[in-house]
């Protein structure tokens, strides 16, 4: 501070506005925040729109004056979409369908990633190539034979149809998790594992006792991302689970139909017809569990890169 005061006032004002080598000036800061706030607002505008529309009563919807601030607090849309979505059941199904395959997927991906990172063997390049291939192939190119096989085995509609591929390292976006673990294990020092080996521990023991604990952040990040991706996945879940379980996104995709089953358009009065407010409340209920999870675990998303040691290569 004293050092700075020795400079003339003009110089200090110039620094304050335009910054110097050590810090940004006021003008740069104003521009930075203005840009961030604008982009941030545009970015989450669909979410705000969704939430505000979902709080609008039928009167507010018809009133062209009501844009961003509803005139009353109205939960009618939510009580209806809660029923239409069959919320407790579909929520449980979604949790089951995303958590269980993710557990297996994460574990198997870590095994494979560890094998690739720590052992020298022939054909490693081929394995990486095949990983890339599994990542790129559109699900349309593999899903029908799988579906028909499940049908023959009587597994169609059962969560096992999603769990078994995950258990074999072929779950949803599995290749990404293998690469995360590969990178993660590469960035970890090998010293502990070496000393365990000298102590005569077996490879599997070293993996469980030394490697797994030290890569815990990679496990958590992978598990969270896996849960989110499984939760939001609808292509495979619709094909494999149809006729069995119904997840939240599956139910949302047939929202109109389900609504009209519960509230037949010819029978209910005009205010109980399906409108965009009800639809938006259904959509919001759909993402609510993820939002809650995100705000609790946000550190793991936001800092996932630092946590897992992904270096972007």
């Amino acid at each position: 501070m004293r050092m700075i005061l020795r400079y003339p006032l003009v110089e200090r004002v110039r620094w304050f506005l335009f910054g110097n080598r050590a810090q940004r000036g006021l003008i740069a800061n104003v521009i930075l925040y203005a840009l961030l706030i604008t982009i941030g607002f545009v970015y989450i505008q669909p979410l705000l729109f969704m939430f505000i529309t979902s709080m609008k009563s039928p009167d507010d919807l018809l009133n062209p004056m009501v844009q961003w601030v509803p005139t009353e607090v109205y939960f009618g849309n939510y009580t209806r979409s809660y029923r239409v979505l069959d919320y407790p059941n579909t929520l449980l199904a979604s949790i089951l369908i995303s958590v269980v395959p993710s557990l297996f997927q994460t574990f198997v991906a870590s095994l494979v990633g560890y094998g690739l990172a720590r052992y020298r063997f022939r054909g490693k390049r081929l394995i990486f190539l095949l990983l890339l291939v599994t990542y790129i192939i559109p699900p349309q190119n593999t899903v029908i034979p799988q579906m028909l096989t499940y049908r023959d085995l009587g597994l169609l509609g059962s969560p096992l149809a999603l769990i078994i591929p995950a258990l074999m390292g072929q779950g949803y976006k599995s290749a990404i998790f293998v690469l995360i673990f590969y990178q993660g294990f590469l960035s970890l020092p090998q010293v502990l594992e070496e000393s365990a080996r000298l102590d005569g521990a077996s490879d599997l023991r070293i993996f469980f006792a030394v490697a797994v604990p030290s890569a815990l952040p990679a496990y958590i990040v992978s598990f969270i991302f896996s849960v989110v991706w499984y939760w939001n996945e609808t292509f495979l879940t619709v094909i494999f689970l149809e006729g069995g379980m119904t997840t939240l996104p599956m139910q949302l995709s047939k929202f109109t139909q389900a609504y009209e089953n519960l509230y037949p358009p010819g029978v209910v009065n005009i205010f109980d017809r399906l409108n965009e407010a009800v639809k938006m409340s259904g959509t919001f209920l759909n993402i609510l569990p993820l939002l809650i999870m995100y705000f609790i675990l946000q550190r793991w998303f936001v800092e996932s890169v630092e946590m897992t040691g992904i270096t972007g290569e």
Partner: protein
Amino acid sequence: MTVRHRFRREISLRTREALHGYAFILIWLVGFSLFTFLSLVETFRYSLNDVTVTATNIQLDFVEWDNYSRALFTDPNFVELLIGYAVETLISVPIVLIFAMIIALFLNLDFRLKGLFRVIFFLPIVITSGPVIKELTEQGAASAPGIADSPAVVEFLTELPHALRTPIEYLLTTFILILWFSGVQILIYLAGLQKIDRSVYEAAAIDGASSWEMFWKIVLPALSTTTVINAVYTIVTLSHFSENKVARYIYQQTYSVQGGIGYASAMAFVYFGVMVVLLAIVYLFLRQWVKRSN
């Protein structure tokens, strides 16, 4: 211990290591063969046949390449959907990449409330799913705010030839959602940025380089490999997205009477082919730049 003895021991150690390595990836290899490789081959076989599924078995009638020629030359929708998909993807990729890079550059700076902005920009990673996107697009919540529905723009669009109008309309009505597909890419760019050694910036600053020059001379070249990864990620994500029009069409045809599994499988392979071409185009385009940067 003789030299020869030691040599043999060495070999056996190496083999043992390799065997242990294979043991770790064995389950993946089995899964790959069963779920990916066999299914891919089987789908290809379907695509060359008329497939009838009954309650007890699957009946195949060999039709050679009929399903493919039908998809490419007879079907009035498929090729148009494919072109639309290719154009939309080629428009979206640069938007996503540039946006992700800008946001990552911002989030790499030091400023107050950085945590809050990070939470905002990664939020779409969590909530982007087919049905949610579909609902939001239907309600018009995804358009570039205040632009898509302004009279001047609407008039301007009606003047344009069809080939130009659809991509621009796509851009205007789904602009925010295109941005929503950049969450993971921002993360990957951040990883790339954090890898750049601070001392490089300091050295450049001492030589009198401005931030602008540093961006073009240091940051951008350093992010070239990351950009390739992000481009691949973006193309794959957009192509696999369950609301993708081509994917939806193939899905509908799978269960429809006129379509059937054989026809849907053929379309799936054509789609896969187009996707690989897109990946190749973007990769070759970016590779020039990566080479120059290294």
